[in-house]
């Protein structure tokens, strides 16, 4: 359940970027497949933290990027659902490219204090 640690780190990062007098309504995160993030687990972690930290009232939008593989035979770089996927050329000699990103990619904030938490 590294999702709890990630949710905590995310709250801390979001808080650092939310302008004074506003609150976050949407938080966008992108994670690569090597990170092994379970969307439901991250959602649970995020939701459970809302009680102690209002930042987590914001809607969390997680984008999981697909595996990016590079073929050792034909050189094609392609996206796949599995790191064991075959290349279109028929080769099984593929390697993983990237995939370990874990990024806060966007924030939306609202400066109306009466709507705090209303998005959840």
């Amino acid at each position, binding site marked *: *359940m*590294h999702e*709890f*640690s*990630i949710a905590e*780190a*995310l709250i*801390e*990062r979001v808080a650092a*970027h*939310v*302008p004074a007098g*506003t609150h976050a309504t949407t938080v966008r*995160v992108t994670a690569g497949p*090597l*990170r*092994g993030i379970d969307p439901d687990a991250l959602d649970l972690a995020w939701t459970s933290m809302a009680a102690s930290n209002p930042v987590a009232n914001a809607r969390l939008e997680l984008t999981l990027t697909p595996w990016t593989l590079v073929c050792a035979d034909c050189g094609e770089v392609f996206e796949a659902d599995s*790191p*064991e996927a075959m290349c279109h050329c028929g080769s099984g*000699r*593929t*390697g*993983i490219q990237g995939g*370990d990103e*874990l*990024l*806060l*990619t*966007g*924030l*939306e*904030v*609202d*400066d109306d204090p009466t709507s705090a938490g209303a998005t959840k």
Partner: protein
Amino acid sequence: MKVQVIENVLKINDEIAALNRERLRRAGVLALDLIGAPGCGKTSLIESTLRKIGGQHRIGVIVGDLTTQRDADRMAKYSEQVVQINTGKGCHLEAQHVRQALARMEVSRLDILFIENVGNLICPVGFDLGQDAKVGIFGVCGGDDKAAKHPYIVTEAALLVLNKIDLLGICPFDKDLFRRDIKKLNPTVPVVEVSTLRDDGLDPWCEWLGKQRAAKQVNEL
């Protein structure tokens, strides 16, 4: 209103890890993050290593577990510098844990630091601790498919250890398949086979440690 931001979520962890790395670099300590599933033999590998080369190198250990002091008690027989971290519910060590542990150690009197992560092949890989390298440990008893199922440790590790080779022939384990899976994910990573139960096969592992330690010393000069 949109706020433009693209940032590493684990920024703070990585900044603390950089402080740890600098502290260890200044002291000339080779720091290795040992990652493997529960029961693969991380602690027994460290014990065997301490017995074998503890006289040549000053080796310290930071060991992470959810609870209990048992691993630290085991290793304290062989090293004066062993710190147990209990993570409570945490399934991995973070840089702050290591920073706190280093504060309890005499880092300047170490050559090698093993950081035994919480038993887990998934979460620990993504958290930088300030180590020089990650070492992935698999046990024969865990099955031959664990490398393929946990690609992150295979792609990140500087060395992989297959432990409990005394169980080959007892537990079903296709070593060729295990090695093929690793080669596909990380064609250059060395794999050493050991039995910590029998203190067997430890020479290549200790030689690798010695080389890493020597390279570290040269870098620090």
